[in-house]
C-alpha cells in the first residue's frame, strides 16, 4: 500500500487496525468496566472506583502480577506491604486478606483465590537484578524489570520513582523456611485467578514480570488477563471478621462517608 501522500498514509494506518479478543467476562456479569490482556514483560494501569471487583487471571500458567495501589484522590496514600502482613498477623495472602494503605485503611480485600501462590515479601525486580539474571532489565528488552515497568506506569499517573514502595505480587508463591530463608513455590498453573474488591477509588499499577525468586534462568513470563466490574453490593458482605480488619474497614468507611462520597 502506498504511503506517498497524506491520504494514502492515513489509509495505510487505518488498514492496520484489527479487532482483538479481550478477556472473557465471567458468568453473570453484564458489563466489564475494564479489560486488558497484559503480555509477559508488559504493564497496565487503571483507575478503579470503590466497589469494583478486579479479577486477575494467569492465562497460561506463568504470569506474575506485581501490583501497587494508590488512593486516586490522594496518591500520597498508598499500599504498605509491611502493614499488609503485620496487621493481619499473616505473611501469606489469601481470601479475606486486606491490602492496607499506610494510613490504616483497606484499599482492597482478596475476595476469591484459586491460586494460593502469592508474595508480599520480595517486591519486584530492578534493572540491575534483571541484567544480572537475564542480561537486561530495560523497558523494551525481552526481560523488563518490574521497577522499570512501574516507573512508566507511575509516570502516566503523575507519580515518580520515589512514589514506588515495595509491591506485592500474585501468581508466584514464596515461603519462609527455617532461619528466615526464602523459597520459591512457583505458580499454581494455567487458569488460576484472584479477585480483589476495591474499597476506595484507587490508581492501580500492574507489572506482569518475573518474580525476583523465579528459579528459571530464562524470562518466561506469560499473559495476564485483567477484568473489572461493578460489585458495590459486596462491600456489605466482607469475608473477614478479625478485629484488626474490622477496624481497618471502619477507618475506610469513615473516610468514604465523611468526604469522598460527595465527590464521586
Amino acid at each position, binding site marked *: 500500500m502506498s504511503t506517498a501522500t497524506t491520504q494514502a498514509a492515513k489509509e495505510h494506518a487505518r488498514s492496520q487496525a484489527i479487532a482483538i479478543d479481550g478477556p472473557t467476562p465471567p458468568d453473570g456479569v453484564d458489563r466489564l468496566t475494564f479489560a486488558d490482556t497484559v503480555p509477559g514483560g508488559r504493564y497496565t494501569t487503571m483507575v478503579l472506583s470503590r466497589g469494583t471487583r478486579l479479577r486477575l487471571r494467569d492465562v497460561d500458567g506463568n504470569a506474575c502480577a506485581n501490583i501497587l495501589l494508590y488512593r486516586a484522590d490522594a496518591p*500520597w496514600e498508598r499500599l504498605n506491604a*509491611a502493614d499488609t502482613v*503485620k496487621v493481619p498477623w499473616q505473611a501469606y495472602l489469601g481470601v479475606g486478606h486486606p491490602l492496607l494503605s*499506610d494510613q490504616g485503611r483497606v484499599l482492597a480485600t482478596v475476595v476469591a483465590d484459586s491460586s494460593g501462590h502469592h508474595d508480599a515479601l520480595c517486591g*519486584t525486580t530492578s534493572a540491575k537484578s534483571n541484567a544480572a539474571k537475564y542480561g537486561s532489565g530495560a523497558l523494551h528488552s525481552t526481560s523488563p524489570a518490574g521497577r522499570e515497568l512501574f516507573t512508566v506506569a507511575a509516570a502516566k499517573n503523575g507519580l515518580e520513582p520515589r512514589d*514506588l514502595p515495595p509491591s506485592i505480587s500474585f501468581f508466584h508463591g514464596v515461603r519462609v523456611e527455617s532461619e528466615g530463608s526464602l523459597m520459591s513455590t512457583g505458580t499454581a498453573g494455567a487458569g488460576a485467578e484472584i479477585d480483589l474488591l476495591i474499597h476506595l477509588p484507587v490508581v492501580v499499577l500492574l507489572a506482569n514480570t518475573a518474580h*525476583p*525468586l523465579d528459579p528459571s534462568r530464562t524470562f518466561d513470563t506469560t499473559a495476564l488477563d485483567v477484568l473489572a466490574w461493578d460489585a458495590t453490593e459486596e462491600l456489605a458482605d466482607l469475608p473477614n471478621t478479625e478485629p484488626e480488619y474490622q477496624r481497618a474497614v471502619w*477507618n475506610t468507611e469513615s473516610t468514604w462517608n465523611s468526604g469522598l462520597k460527595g465527590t464521586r
Partner: protein
Amino acid sequence: MTTTLDTIILDQCADARASWSTVVAAGDVLTIIDLHGNQAVDTLVYSAQDHAVRYSASATIAAQRNLFLTTGSILLSDDSTPLMTIVADEVGNHDTVGGACSQESNTLRYGHHTKHQHACVENFLIEGAKWGLGKRDMVSNINFFMNVPVDADGTLGIVDGLSAPGKSLSLRAEIDTLVLVSNCPQINNPCNGFDPTPVRMVVTRS
C-alpha cells in the same frame, strides 16, 4: 566494631522515643548500641546525594533470599545499589518486614484509643523534613533489635527481642548515606519490652 585505630567521628545518644539522623560517609562505620536491651531502632537509609535512591526491604530480602538481617547482609536500594553492609552483629537477627508503627496502623493493631500515642512514622516525618524528605519518601524500613518470626502457616508477629543490654551492631556505609532513625516509641508490643530506652550511635573512621 570500634578499635583503637579508629577515629570517632560522632558519638551521640538517640533518646527513647526520639528521632535521630546523620550522614555516614562512604567507608565509615555506624555502630548502634542497644544500651538497655530489647530496644527497637527503626531505621531508614537513603543515598545522601540522591534521596530518590533509598533502602528497599523487599529488594534486600529478595537478593539475600532471607528475611532476617545480620552480619554480611547488604542493604540494597530499590534499584539494587548497595547502601550499607552489616559488618558486625552481636544479636544475629534483625527485622525488615514489620515496617514502622504509625498512629494509623496502631488503631488497627491496638484499638482506636492508641491513635494519639507516639509513633515511628511521626518521628520519620519530622526528622525527614530536616533533610527535605516528605511523606512520599517514607518507605520500607529496618527494625534493628526487633524479632519478627514467620511460622510455617505464615503467621508472623513481633515477639520478645533477642537483644540484651550493651549488644550492638555495626554498619559500613558503601556510599554516602543519610540514616534516619526513630528510636521506636512503641509501647504496645514486646519489641522494646513495653519500655522504650535510649540507644548510643557511634560513627568511626579507620
